[in-house]
């Protein structure tokens, strides 16, 4: 299924990239990219540029902290 990039939305303090793409049939497909992800080599260049711009070490550190806090909340003790 070929997907055409339609929109990049930046959400949360962790600068996640919500990606909206258009499918062959004209519908929308959605996915979210997180700041600790390694992007695929064939990822859209616009997405790679946005990630490079926004995913600073400070943002990644805050995200790591958030994940650890959530894991602790879900698995106390």
């Amino acid at each position: 299924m070929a997907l055409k990039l339609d929109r990049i939305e930046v959400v949360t303090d962790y600068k996640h990239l919500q990606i909206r793409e258009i499918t062959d049939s004209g519908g929308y497909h959605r996915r979210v990219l997180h700041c600790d992800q390694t992007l695929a080599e064939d990822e859209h260049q616009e997405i790679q540029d946005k990630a490079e711009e926004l995913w600073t070490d400070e943002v990644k550190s805050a995200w790591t902290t958030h994940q650890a806090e959530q894991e602790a909340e879900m698995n106390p003790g």
Partner: protein
Amino acid sequence: MSGLINSAGSRSGVLGTTELDYEEGTWTAGMSDGSTSLTMNGSFVTGYYTKIGNLVTVSGFFRTTGLNGLTSEAIRITGLPFDVATGSSAYSGGGAAYGESLNIPANSSISFNTAVGDSFIYLQLWDDAGGSSGLTASEWSADGSIQLGFTYRAG
């Protein structure tokens, strides 16, 4: 509510004095323990979503074909179409509607709950009087599957 529908199925409208965005489409589910991915059955990875305002409703039927060495690790379903909102008030979830080829005790059940500020759901096994515990890969089994649907608040 009134609005315009464009060619990709999105519209917006006004309900009272609040402008609402409407969007529908598909998302692709994955499963993992947070680092190692299970192998998905390609025929059972696509779900639907509908977003109205900040509420997202998702559905789907998801199946794996392999655990990739995972056993006692708690597993999750990844790939939600929008991040869940942050803050404890945003936790959401529900019960699995259907399950197949699972390796769970009789008279137990599976539920799921969101991670906040993230785009996955934890899977929970209700097999203890005290509450739920994270569903492990071996409890899921290599060819496990579930159907689910629920609504959450987008970030």
